[in-house]
Every structure is written in structure tokens, then in C-alpha cells.
């Protein structure tokens, strides 16, 4: 008999190995093979974590919003959508935190300061706080369906912040530089291996996100099942008492 342990499957295990290999490749490219920047020197290497982190957070929060919308609009309102939304939200918060920390380090080394109340930094910090609030709202109690309904509405409101964060550098005069790849001019402003390292980081972090979200939503499913089982046991106990 096949023994099922943990939240992994053979597919997620293969994906996990691929993620490890890609992250190792990113470390080699980012720290070893890619050259220093002519102005920033080695400091530029922070970009290979900083940019993929915020990119992954955008994807995570996008997935949270899509799953929330599907949950609210669906006829059967499957809680699986809510669990995917919650799992993506948790991982998105983690990646925004990584982006804020690495951005702060990069800022100290290039701008000369850890933090400024600049439009990009402020809107990113606000995004972080919003999704921390989203995660807290998920934990406020009630039934699974109450949790799903209130957090789905919040997720659909919170996603509106993403365009504000991304375009803040063009909407306001900002200390933060404009996008080097996804910019309105469609002009890529990175030299060869730097661009490759950044692209590798984007792919590796995206796959890492997929791996994490698959495991986390399965863990959430088990948590919900455990909680439901507790309720079933309580009802059974009451019935037994009544029948005694």
C-alpha cells in the first residue's frame, strides 16, 4: 500500500528539485558569472533577489485576487479557491518582506540611506501592511465560509494597490529608478549576463512560489479537515449523550 506522508506528491518533489537547481544556477550567475555594474559595482547583485521577490509578490497577490473572485462568483463556492487565495497571500507577504529588506540594503549602498518616504517605497510598505491585515482577517474566526467570504472581498480591494505600486515611479517624482525591463518604452536597459541572471531569478522565484503555494494550500486543507473533524466529533458526542 502506498504510504502518503506530508503534503508532497511525485510532481511537487520533481518541481522542488528543479527549483533547487535553478536557485543554485541563480546563485552562480548572480554572484560569480555576471559582471559588476560600472557605477554600482557588486551592489547590483542584490537586484537578482530584489526584483524577482517583488515580481513573485505581484503574481501571488494576483492569484489571491483571481481565486477570491472565482470563489465569490462560483455557484458551488468551493473552499479550495479560498485556500489557494490564502496560501498565495501568505507567500506573497513573505516575498514583499524579502523585497523590502533587500531594497533597504540596496538603498543604503547606492542612495546612501536605508529608507526614504518615497512613492515607490511607501506604496510597497503599504502593500505589505495591507496583506498582513488580509492574513489577520482570515484568522478572525467563524466558519470556513465566513472566512472565505470576508477575505475574498478584502483581496479584491487590496489588488487595486498593485498598479499604484508599479507605476508610482512614473506617477510621482521618485528616488527609486524606473523599471529596466517592463518599462513603457519597451527598452531593456541591462547588459547581457545581467539580463540573463535577472530572467533566471524571475523564473526560479516563480517556480519556488508555485511549489510553496501547492504545499501550503494542501496544509490548509488538512487544517480545515482537522477543524471540521473536531466539530464532527463534538456533534457525535452530543448525539451519544442524548441517546444515552
Amino acid at each position, binding site marked *: 500500500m502506498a504510504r502518503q506522508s506530508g503534503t508532497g506528491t511525485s510532481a511537487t518533489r520533481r518541481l522542488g528539485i528543479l527549483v533547487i537547481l535553478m536557485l543554485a544556477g541563480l546563485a552562480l550567475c548572480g554572484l560569480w558569472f555576471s559582471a559588476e*555594474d560600472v557605477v554600482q559595482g557588486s551592489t547590483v547583485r542584490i537586484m537578482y533577489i530584489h526584483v524577482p521577490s517583488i515580481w513573485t509578490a505581484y503574481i501571488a497577490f494576483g492569484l489571491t485576487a483571481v481565486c477570491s473572485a472565482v470563489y465569490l462568483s462560483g455557484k458551488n463556492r468551493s473552499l479550495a479557491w479560498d485556500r489557494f487565495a490564502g496560501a498565495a497571500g501568505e507567500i506573497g507577504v513573505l516575498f514583499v518582506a524579502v523585497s523590502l529588506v533587500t531594497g533597504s540594503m540596496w538603498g543604503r549602498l547606492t*542612495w546612501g540611506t536605508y529608507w526614504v518616504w518615497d512613492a515607490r517605497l511607501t506604496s510597497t510598505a503599504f502593500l505589505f501592511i495591507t496583506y498582513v491585515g488580509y492574513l489577520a482577517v482570515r484568522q478572525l474566526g467563524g466558519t470556513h465560509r465566513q472566512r472565505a467570504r470576508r477575505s475574498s472581498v478584502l483581496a479584491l480591494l487590496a489588488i487595486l494597490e498593485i498598479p499604484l505600486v508599479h507605476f508610482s515611479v512614473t506617477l510621482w517624482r521618485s528616488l527609486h529608478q524606473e523599471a529596466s525591463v517592463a518599462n513603457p518604452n519597451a527598452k531593456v536597459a541591462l547588459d547581457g549576463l545581467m539580463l540573463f541572471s535577472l530572467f533566471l531569478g524571475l523564473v526560479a522565484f516563480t517556480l519556488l512560489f508555485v511549489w510553496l503555494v501547492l504545499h501550503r494550500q494542501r496544509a490548509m486543507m488538512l487544517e480545515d479537515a482537522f477543524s471540521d473533524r473536531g466539530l464532527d466529533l463534538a456533534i457525535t458526542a452530543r448525539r451519544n449523550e442524548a441517546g444515552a
Partner: protein
Amino acid sequence: MDLTPRTVTEPGTQPPARKRRWLPILVVVGALLGGGVIVTQFLTSAIDYYCNVDEVGVRSGCSGERRMRVQGVVEQNSVKHADGGTTFTLDFNRKTLKVAYSGDPGGVFQECIPIIAHGRVVNGVFESDRIEVKHSNQYVEKNSTRIDASNKEAAACSVLKG
């Protein structure tokens, strides 16, 4: 089957009291307060006008001795360090402004790089107490066969001005 509410009185048999989840409530309150602080700080910092060098003394909010943030490019061969301070000339749209900074600017401060200086104009000189170095969104590999150490600054200058 009787499922009416029971009246259990024996000690130890009462159902546990329903626990209110205080931690999530505290986190929600903290998030609301944190959001308020973030917005307040952003708006407070926005009180200082953000002016380009060519707007100083011309644009509304960029004149007089009020505190402002001035953006420009550090002019080549203008940086001088003396008495623990740094003086240089900022350039933008062919207008220049002399800057006196009380310290040694950090980051990748150098000639030909865009910066933002915080301070106020006193007797025609911008007295700054804070400098933030901007870097462009262009990333150019430092190639030892193409650019040697002696012309590094010139290369950086051409990248930023180009």
C-alpha cells in the same frame, strides 16, 4: 434524538469557554495603525517641495529660503572636500546651483551622478543636510578589457548623460 441545550454542572465536564482570538484582532488593529503611519509619513515628507535645479527660484514652492528637495546632476570636476564638508555644483537643464553639504555623502555619490539634496537656499548656496544618490535604470557591465579604472568615472558619466 434530543439535541436541546444541555445543562451540565459537574466540574470538569463543562465545555471549554469560547476563546476570542485576540492575536488576529491585534494584528488587524496594528495593520490599520501602520497604514495610517505610512500615509502620514509620506504626506509629511511630501511637504518639502521636490524641485529640479532649473526650477529653484522660479517655480512656486521652490523659491525663498523654505526647505525643499532639489534634484540635479553633480557637475564634473566640481566636488571638493574640506573641513569635513563637501561642496559641489548641481546641474539640470543648463542651470546650476552651488551646494554645500555638511558631511561626506554616502552611497555611490560621484561626479556626473544624479542626486537629491535636502536643505534650503541661503545667500545663493543650497545648504544641504541630507543627500540621496539616484541611480539610473540602466545597468552596464564593468568590463576590464573595455573600461579600466582610470576612466571609470568618465564611463559612468557617459552612461548617465547618454
